[in-house]
């Protein structure tokens, strides 16, 4: 990929985290990339942590909705409707 270091059959942490990032975002990886990443994660606690934490961050960034269905209060909606009605009159 990039970098000045020599590549072996197993990706380095820098490349492994990049591959993991692509996988997290549903970017398809080649068979070799998938195997390389899997092997790397088997041996590397830091990258395992990275993957776990990165996934958690994605969740925080994308969707913070609580499990329960949430709607605004009826009173708030009435307030909004009144507000809109008033502005239209003006």
């Amino acid at each position, binding site marked *: 990929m990039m970098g000045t270091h020599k590549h072996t059959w197993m990706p380095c942490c820098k490349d492994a985290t990049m591959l993991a990032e692509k996988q997290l975002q549903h970017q398809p990886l080649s068979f070799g990339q998938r195997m390389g990443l899997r092997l790397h994660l088997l041996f590397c606690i830091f990258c395992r942590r990275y993957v776990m934490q990165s996934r958690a961050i994605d969740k925080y960034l994308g969707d913070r909705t609580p499990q329960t269905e*949430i709607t605004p209060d009826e009173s708030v*909606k009435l307030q909004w409707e009144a507000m809109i009605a008033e502005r239209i009159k003006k």
Partner: protein
Amino acid sequence: MQIEKPPTTVQASMTTANPTRWVKLYADDLFKFAVAKVGDNGLAQDLVQEAFLSALQAQEQFRGESSEKTWLMAILKNKIIDHFRKSSKVPVTISIEEDKAGDSDPHHFFFNEKGHWRRETAPKAWVSGISSQQDQVDFFTILRGCMNKLTSIGKRVFDLKYLEEKESADICKDLSISSSNYWVIIHRAKLQLRACLEKNWFSN
């Protein structure tokens, strides 16, 4: 942002907005989206209200080029982005070396010349979680603070991706960046965001 541009073509049959039915038809979805992005009901209510007000003022600009709902949603997204920009003064700290590195390649900050994690910046196990409601509010404040420490391109890509929920391909097109460049930006931004969250939240 889209809505502030003057329309390039005026359609023959103009569709007009119908504000009297907005609350009934769209309030639930707008509110749910806002809560998902800001993690706070009260704030989400304020943002939806502001969005309705702006939409009322900009009614004439609605040309029916998109559905009324898409149009309102775009206004709401802008309100959310504005809110995040304004609340950027959150005191989060990043290390001096990282700060100095600025826009230069932060990969050197995290990885050595062999591409392995540097001992000092390798991911640590996260000790504190997000349990209470107050934790949740505090955490999202820190998260926003950390987002604002990203490089401008990193921030832009993250906003498009997580807030506007755009596809990677569309983000590349919008920002005229190549796909490989896109992944480098995402990777760097994620490395920085992760480190910032670890330092300011998950390690104490």
